[in-house]
């Protein structure tokens, strides 16, 4: 019985922490760093901006 109470309580508290903390943004310590995993290939953004710039330049001409 005490086993169920201890581990059941632990599960309940952990779920409470998850549902509350999960909705909060991670600290700047976590998000503002250079060595983050680049899953969505952000480096290609520069190329698109450059291509925008080129297209605009063409329009100008």
């Amino acid at each position: 019985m005490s086993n169920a109470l201890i581990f059941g309580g632990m599960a309940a508290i952990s779920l409470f922490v998850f549902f509350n903390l999960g909705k909060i943004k991670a600290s700047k310590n976590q998000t503002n760093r250079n060595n983050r995993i680049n899953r969505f290939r952000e480096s290609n953004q520069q190329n698109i901006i450059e291509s925008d710039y080129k297209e605009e330049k063409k329009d100008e001409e």
Partner: protein
Amino acid sequence: MSKHSAINRFGRSRNPAFSRNFDQGGFRTQSSSEMNAGSGFRTTSSVAESTDIMTLDGAVNKTGILLALCFTGAAVGWNIPALTLPAGILGFILALVTIFRSPSKAGTTAPFYALVQGVMLGGISLMYENLYDGIAIQAIGLTFGILASLLVCYKSGLIKPTENFRLMVGAGIGGIFILYMVSFVMSFFGSGISLLSPTNGSLMSIGLSLGIVCFASLSLVLDFDYIEEGAEKGLPKYMEWYGAFSLMVTLIWLYLEILRLLAKINSRR
């Protein structure tokens, strides 16, 4: 002086009125942070569309829905253990479909996956519970305990997932997968890897289980980072389901490994 000097100095406007889309025949004039170039996901800064992007709130709520479905399924599996194997196979197929065929349909497949895997977990938990009394609740407590503590570590920046971290976890999971596959193939010939057996209480076997639990736990951190980054980059709404689904896959794996580890420890008594 080029007219782009203002853009260079102040950056591009975020005003939706000044943005044009590729779809409308023009070229895009959005800020780089709002573009998910190369990712296959197009997001715009339109206020009307801001409800269609992934958020942390949405991903956590969807994880809650999947957990509730999993517990419902577990109640069924606990009472009808004969469903364990078919549910396991169906769950595996659903996971493959969600991952490889249609991540965008995760909103449909993920709830079914959670329900079906719940049925499987209920049956397996009952099997272990019959061997060692009270083991299931211990595994549930430890699984959610690890989830919450790693979330605290991740949010506070104590654990920082990097490309090397991902490589290390990926390599470890790859090795574990090969071990599982070898054991699975060997089981057709009436043998198996005894280190993976839940009744093997040797220190080597417990050490292996501890290692697998560590890798499963660390992959939770990668899931948190995936959801956090997805919300930051404004991925489409369905990615909330996909993020919740990936968290569920890891949680189910972690729970099963903790169950096995506890069984091994109990078998030493």
